[in-house]
C-alpha cells in the first residue's frame, strides 16, 4: 500500500468533473419535482442530450453549440412527457419510465453514424494568473465552462426558489395545485416550463459525459447516472445545496475508491465499490432528519375540473 501515489489536488479536481453530470441532471429534476412533477425519464433525457450534443459538436466543430443542442434535445424529449402528463393526464411514473426506454432507443438510432468519432474538445476557462496559484489554482481555476455553469445553476435555482416571486409560485404549484389554481395561477403552464427546464438540464448533463468526461459516443453510455440523479433529489430533501453536496460526495467517493484501488489499499474491493452509494445515502439521510418533506402534490395529476 502506498498512499503517497494519490494526489489529493488531482483527486478533488477529478471529483468536481465526475460529479457535474449528476449535478446538472439532479438540479433540473429538483425544479420539476418542486413544481409537483415526478419525471422518471431523467436517464432517457440525458442520453438523448448526450447524442444531440455530440452530433452537433462534431458536425459544427463547436462544443459550445453542442451543449446548446443537448439542452434543446433534452427539453424536446421532455416536451413529450409534458404532453402525456399535463395534457392527456397520463400517469407520471409510467410516462417517465417510457420516456427513459424511448430515449435509450432513440439515442442509439441517432448515434449510429457517430461511433468511434472524436469530438472537438472544449477548452478550459482561462483564468490567467489565477490558475497558477499552488493547489487552489488546479482545484478551482482549471476547469471547463460547463462545470462552472453547473455550480452557478445550483446557486441560481436556490436563490430563485427562496427569494423570488417566481420561486414562490413554483413551490405553491408543487405543494397544492388546487389552491394554486384557485389563486389564478396557471398550473399546467408552470409545470410544463419546469419539465422543460428539467429536460434541458438533463440534456446538458448527458452531453457533459459524451463531450467532456469520456469524450466519445457509445450506446447506453450514461449507464444509470440518471437514476442516481433521481435518487439524489429525494435524499437531498429537494434542497439545491444538498444536491450539490450529494453529487460531490458521490463523485468524490467514486474517484477515491478507484484511487485507493490503484494504490493497493487492503480494503476488499467490493466494499470500496459500494462505498459511494452507501456514504451518499447515509449522509443525506442524516441531513434530512429535519422536518423537510416531499412537495405535497408530487406525482399527482392536476385537472382544473377536480
Amino acid at each position, binding site marked *: 500500500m502506498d498512499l503517497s*501515489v494519490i*494526489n489529493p489536488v488531482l483527486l478533488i479536481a477529478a471529483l468536481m468533473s465526475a460529479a457535474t453530470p449528476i449535478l446538472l441532471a439532479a438540479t433540473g429534476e429538483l425544479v420539476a419535482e418542486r413544481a409537483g412533477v415526478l419525471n422518471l425519464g431523467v436517464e432517457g433525457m440525458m442520453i438523448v442530450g448526450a447524442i444531440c450534443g455530440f452530433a452537433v459538436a462534431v458536425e459544427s466543430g463547436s462544443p459550445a453549440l453542442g451543449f446548446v443542442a443537448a439542452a434543446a434535445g433534452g427539453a424536446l424529449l421532455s416536451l413529450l412527457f409534458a404532453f402525456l402528463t399535463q395534457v392527456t393526464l397520463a400517469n407520471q411514473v409510467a410516462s417517465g419510465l417510457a420516456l427513459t426506454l424511448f430515449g435509450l432507443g432513440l439515442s*442509439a438510432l441517432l448515434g449510429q453514424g457517430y461511433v468511434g468519432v472524436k469530438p472537438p474538445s472544449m477548452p478550459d476557462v482561462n483564468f490567467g494568473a489565477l490558475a497558477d496559484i499552488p493547489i487552489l489554482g488546479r482545484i478551482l481555476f482549471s476547469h471547463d465552462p460547463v462545470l462552472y455553469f453547473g455550480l452557478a445553476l445550483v446557486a441560481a435555482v436556490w436563490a430563485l426558489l427562496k427569494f423570488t416571486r417566481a420561486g414562490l409560485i413554483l413551490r405553491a404549484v408543487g405543494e397544492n395545485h388546487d389552491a394554486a389554481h384557485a389563486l389564478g395561477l396557471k398550473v399546467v403552464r408552470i409545470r410544463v416550463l419546469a419539465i422543460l427546464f428539467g429536460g434541458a438540464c438533463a440534456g446538458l448533463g448527458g452531453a457533459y459525459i459524451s463531450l467532456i*468526461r469520456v469524450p466519445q459516443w*457509445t450506446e447506453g*453510455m450514461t449507464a444509470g447516472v440518471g437514476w442516481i440523479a433521481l435518487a439524489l433529489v429525494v435524499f437531498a430533501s429537494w434542497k439545491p445545496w444538498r444536491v450539490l453536496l450529494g453529487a460531490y460526495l458521490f463523485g468524490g467517493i467514486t*474517484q477515491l475508491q478507484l484511487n485507493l484501488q490503484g494504490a493497493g489499499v487492503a480494503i476488499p*474491493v467490493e466494499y470500496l465499490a459500494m462505498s459511494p452509494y452507501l456514504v451518499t445515502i447515509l449522509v443525506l439521510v442524516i441531513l434530512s432528519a429535519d422536518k423537510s418533506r416531499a412537495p405535497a402534490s408530487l406525482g399527482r395529476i392536476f385537472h382544473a375540473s377536480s
Partner: protein
Amino acid sequence: MKLTTLLTSAAMALGLATAAFAAGHEKTKVGFVYVGPVGDGGWTYEHNKGRLAVEEEFGDAVETVFVENVPEGPDAERVMTQMALDGADLIFTTSFGYMDPTINVAKKFPDVKFEHATGYKRADNVSTYSARFYEGRAIQGHIAGKMTKSNIVGYIGSYPIPEVIRGINSAFIHARKANPDVQFKIVWAYTWFDPAKEADAAKVLIEQGADVVLQHTDSTAPQAAAQEAGNVITFGQASDMAQYAPMPRVSSIIDDWAPYYIARTKAVMEGTWESTDTWDGIGAGMVGIGEITDAVPADVKAEALALKESIASGAYHPFTGPINKQDGSVWLADGEVADDGTLAGMNFYVEGIEGDIPQ
C-alpha cells in the same frame, strides 16, 4: 349456409397454408444474448459481427435474433426463455455471467441447443466456447514491458473471474520478462460496460503514473482517456479499436467468432450438433493480433511478432515454468506447461503482482 361454407373453406385454406409452410423449408433460428450494446466497439460488437457472418453465410436458410444490454442475472434467464419459446434452435449466450441462467434454461428446453461463451458448465444441450485471450495478453505484456518508461502498467479489470485473472497473469509474466522493474496497478471496475467509469479508472491509473493502460472492459472509453492524456499507450480489447491507432492504441486483441458461429449453426442445420468444449487461440484464428503500429520501435515489434508466431505454432505456451504463485509457492516447475483445467479455473496471481484478488 353460404357463410358457413365460406368460413369452412377459409379455415381449410388457412390450415393448408400453415401445413405447407411447416412442411416446407423451415428456417433455422439462431439467437444471441449480448451483455452490452452492439455499438460498444469491443466485445459485443465482435459477437455481432459473428452473427452477421452467419446471416451472410446461410442467407435465407437462417434467421437470427439478438437482445442487447441483457444484465447478468435473472433477467438473462427471462430473455433466453423468451428466445427459446419463440422457436430458436440455437442460442449463443455471450458473457461469463450467463453461465447459470444458460444451464437453467437449457434444462427446460432439451431440444434447443445452447452455446455459452467463456464459461465451464456444460450439459447435453449446452456447449461452451472461449478464446485463449491470454495468448494475446502475452504479446501485449511484452510490448508494455518494453515501452513503459515509468515502469508502471495500469490494468482495468472487470470482474475477478478466471478469464480476467488469466489475462493479468499472462500480461504480467511477459512484461516482467521484458522489463524486470515493471509493476502492475490493477483497478477493478465491476462492470463490463460503463464508459464513464472506465474512463475514470483509466484517468486514475494515468494520474498514478501508469504510461501503459491495459483494459479488460468492453468500451473504447479508456482509449479516449489515454489519448487525452498524451504519452500513454493502450491496446484494443476484443475488437481492433483501430480508430485510436497509431496512438494511443498500438496493437489489439481481436476476437473472431465468425468461423465458430458458422460451424455451429451448420452443425444444427445438419443435425450433427454435439455438446463440446472449444478453446481456441491464435493458431486456430479465434484470437487475432491487430496491427502493431509505428509507435512501437521496430525491434520490439519484431520480438512481439516472433512471440506471436511461436505461440501460434504451439512451440511456446505463455504459461511455461518456472512460475511461482503470488505467495512464492511453486506452481509450474522449469519447463512445465500449465494444464487447461488449472487455467480455466485460475484464481491466483503469479509471483510479483501486488494486491489481492477480490473474493
